């Protein structure tokens, strides 16, 4: 087993307890950081080349450097932690909050010091009630122990909206609005929460910071797949594997190793059909591509992304049209409704995929499906539209014969035997199925 970073110590101690966390060196780095100039802290993160773990892979130190100084903008500065983990396939931040809540809090306090913020908001997805409670206890303990100093940390629960995981949607939601993303510029670094300079980072990124300081940036940068994909990730492994779960590993491990060495392979003797490497919004890989190392550059070369490092394994029972339909239904359900291509396009994708799955589509509608994806891609206000179009288009491209078979046979070639057969998409606020019956006024 490789060295654990984010989850270090949690394998044999209950690090939710403050004393236990301190016993493994907890909050020492906070004390060290506070003695350092903010620029030195940021420098260390830059040396480590710590990249954002939420999916955008942006250098964390650089993001901090974008925050203007108090002299430049005379407003309070804010740290927002994105704990609104909602991408299907992703469940790593939840594990971090469950097992190393103090490491997250320590990271928050170091980040606050680095950008001269007195206020930290942790936006935690509403569905994570147990994690919220755990984090709240940890926060109370840390506060009582006087670790917060002048800094205020507020835990803010979401209420069920995927789009609030998008940073500007998160800010809107935190301001008490509908979580619709904002047009950028202005960027959060200069005009974020309450139009003030704001740093937004993912839970895993923030929870990595204390360990980066502990190891030293240079040492951390040797881990994983340097120069860009340094350090470890919590790989979320799900789908058709024997042992799903989170595995913290250095970046650069191959998908094959993840599936067969860690997760116990495909159950019930089935064949591997495809793998989604970074969460449901990422383009899919076929079974013959699983020797790719899970790191940024190698996956880019295959036209997909590491995203939030969520590996979804799909065996040969799954109908790819059904998979596409269910993914499209999710993004339609989660589209915020602000920009046209996403709002209308995701609904149209669902309709087209429904028709294909029902065997009622024509070949030209199959091409239309690709064209609609293309017309969404790159034209939306935020990445959600792309998150729907990218995977669906990749399913068609990679499994075109299967899509064509639906059209040619006038039915699903799986004949009801697909593992995804009959998968039900949630009903909306009004008890209506999203596409089939709608239009009920509020």
């Amino acid at each position, binding site marked *: 087993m490789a060295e654990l970073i984010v989850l270090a110590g949690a394998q044999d101690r209950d690090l939710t307890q403050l004393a236990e966390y301190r016993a493994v060196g907890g909050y020492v780095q906070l004390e060290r950081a506070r003695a350092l100039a903010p620029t030195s802290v940021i420098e260390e993160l830059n040396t480590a080349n710590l990249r954002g773990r939420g999916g955008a892979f942006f250098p964390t130190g650089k993001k901090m450097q974008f925050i203007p100084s108090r002299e430049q903008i005379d407003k309070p500065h804010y740290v927002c932690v994105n704990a609104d983990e909602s991408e299907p396939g992703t469940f790593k931040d939840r594990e971090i909050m469950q097992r190393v809540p103090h490491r997250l809090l320590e990271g928050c306090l170091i980040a606050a010091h680095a950008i001269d913020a007195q206020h930290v908001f942790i936006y935690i997805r509403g569905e994570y*009630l147990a994690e919220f409670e755990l984090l709240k206890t940890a926060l109370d303990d840390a506060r009582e122990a006087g670790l917060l100093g002048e800094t205020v940390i507020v835990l803010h629960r979401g209420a069920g*909206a995927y789009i609030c995981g998008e940073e500007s949607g998160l800010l809107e939601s935190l301001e008490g609005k509908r979580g619709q993303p904002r047009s950028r510029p202005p960027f959060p670094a200069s005009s974020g929460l309450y139009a003030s300079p704001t740093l937004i980072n993912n839970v895993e990124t923030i929870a990595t910071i204390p360990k980066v300081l502990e190891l030293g940036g240079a040492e951390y940068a040797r881990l994983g797949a340097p120069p860009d994909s340094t350090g470890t990730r919590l790989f979320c492994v*799900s*789908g058709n594997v024997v042992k799903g779960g989170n595995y913290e590993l250095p970046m650069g491990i191959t998908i094959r190793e993840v599936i067969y060495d860690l997760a116990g392979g495909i159950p019930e003797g089935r064949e591997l059909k495809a793998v989604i490497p970074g969460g*449901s919004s990422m383009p899919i890989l076929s079974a013959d591509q699983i020797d790719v190392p899970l790191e940024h550059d190698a996956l880019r070369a295959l036209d997909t992304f590491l995203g939030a490092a969520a590996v*979804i394994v799909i065996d040969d029972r799954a109908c790819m049209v059904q998979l596409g339909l269910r993914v499209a239904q*999710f993004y339609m359900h989660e589209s915020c409704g602000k920009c046209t291509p996403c709002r209308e396009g995701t609904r149209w994708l669902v309709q087209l995929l429904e028709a294909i799955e029902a065997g009622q589509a024509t070949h030209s509608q199959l091409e239309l499906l690709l064209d609609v994806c293309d017309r969404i891609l790159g034209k939306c206000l935020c990445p959600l539209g792309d998150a729907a179009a990218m995977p669906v288009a990749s399913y068609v491209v990679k499994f075109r014969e299967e899509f064509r078979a639906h059209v040619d046979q006038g039915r699903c070639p799986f004949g009801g035997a697909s593992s995804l057969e009959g*998968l039900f998409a949630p009903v909306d606020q009004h008890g209506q199925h999203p596409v089939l019956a709608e239009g009920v006024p509020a």
Partner: protein
Amino acid sequence: MRALAASYPDSRSAVLPALRLAQERHQGWLPPEAFREVGEALELTPAYCKSVASFYDMLHLQPVGRRLVEVCTNICCGLRGAQEVLRAFEDELGVAPGETTDDGEFTLRAVECIGGCGWPTVVAIDDRHRLNVGADEVAGIVAELRRG
């Protein structure tokens, strides 16, 4: 609700916590008067409060049962049989997804991914997650819930 507002630099930020509190006070959903109450406390219009509430899946605009049973039916759970789990709940409770039992005891919902993909199928009962739920365990779960 006003105390909630004090945690934030701008009281409007308290709208989600306040709506959640109002939902608890109104048997799990938000009737029109709940929006008036939240609006009054935070100096917002009820229309604004409803506009916000309707954006979020966990804030309910329709009455719900005393217990909320939510089954994840996104792809990761779906690849591992979530539909059978959902169907088992339908059979046990006698309602379709989105419906409430006649006695007002249970509302069954299919929901989007709730973040337990490695442990399918994930079922949330009153926001408490149960992991690795199989269809064969559903009858036992319902019986346990009925016992209270």
